[in-house]
């Protein structure tokens, strides 16, 4: 049957967690990330003939999800005032799920990064895209990708370095 697309299902099973994590780093809210990623995968299914030939289908999904998030913000913006998703990045970090595994300090530190740095981190670290592909997805120069990644890692390292408390002499 035409609608049965086993290669899509395989792609979905393989990529969905990475795409969700990449989008989550960018949008900062797990429910929103899940919804826009689902929408992006649905669009990928609807255009699978094209998307399957994309050099990085997962990057296509992430880019589509991020665009969907912007569209959603614009729709909501016409109804009620909501913060620009680009500005949300600069809001105080709010861990999306404090009960989740891993180090909540790392996730909080990620959320304190500027949105473009977060996007670079998401694509490079969670989708394993190289510099050139990351630059293509984000529409920026490869040199800018390297610059953002370097600054992001520096900020994270600085943010996560152990804090030492000087013990007062007794």
């Amino acid at each position, binding site marked *: 049957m035409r*609608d049965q697309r086993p290669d*899509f299902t395989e792609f979905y099973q393989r990529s969905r967690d990475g*795409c969700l994590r990449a989008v989550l780093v960018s949008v900062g809210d*797990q429910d929103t990330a899940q919804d826009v990623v689902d929408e992006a*995968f649905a669009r990928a*299914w609807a255009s699978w003939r094209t998307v399957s030939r994309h050099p990085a289908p997962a990057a296509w999904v992430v880019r589509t999800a991020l665009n969907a998030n912007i569209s959603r913000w614009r729709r909501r913006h016409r109804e009620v005032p909501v913060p620009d998703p680009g500005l949300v990045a600069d809001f105080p970090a709010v861990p999306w799920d404090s009960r989740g*595994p891993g*180090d909540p300090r790392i996730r909080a530190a990620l959320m304190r990064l500027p949105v473009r740095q977060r996007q670079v981190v998401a694509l490079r670290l*969670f989708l394993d895209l190289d510099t050139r592909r990351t630059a293509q997805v984000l529409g920026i120069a490869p040199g800018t990708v390297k610059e953002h990644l370097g600054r992001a890692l520096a900020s994270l390292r600085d943010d996560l*370095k152990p804090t030492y408390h000087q013990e007062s002499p007794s």
Partner: protein
Amino acid sequence: MNDNELITAVRESFTGVHSTTPAAQIVKRGRAVRARRRVPAVAAAGAAAAAAVAVSVALTGSHPAAGHPPAGHPASGPGVVRLAAWTVTRQAGGSIKVTFREAADAAGLQRTLRADGVPASVTFTGGQNPACRPYTFSGSPSTPAGQPFRGPVNGLIGGPGFSANPKGAYTTPYALVISPSRLPSGAGLQIWTSGTPGAAGNFQLQVGVVQASPQCTGS
């Protein structure tokens, strides 16, 4: 902490984040996306096909009855779809049929009617030509004695102006059959629209018999 250790730590902090949406749900949503896309796609394909027909008519069509294909408003043979705003066809017996589909290119229609011997003023701007004066009927000189009166438009005339569309709203193709021989001497036709131009269903096509004059009907 070096870069590799940092990257590993960042990745591990997300290991508990999983997508929980079943593939079947994505596929269902994908079908809805595809269905949404198909509606405008089908409409666009229809419009493209219609445009192709119109172009082919414009290139090959001739005016079989009147012998003059008005530019951009071609007539066509039987069974051929015609999509121009209006079509002017000279019929047997000398009558002229004007089929309206859209109130557009008033100047072209006016020029065509005048070329066919109908003193006419055509305006689609939502009002009458201020240069036109109503023609006052005093009988029909072209009506043979003992015959019922037959006017110059659709066999009728309702005075200086009447709604040409019996349904009131100009929403579907509508035809006027003009009989130039029934126009009184010194009279012409004024065709205009009332209401909002371009808003289908919200304006009426109007026809009136007016005094022929260079300012109104061109002669």
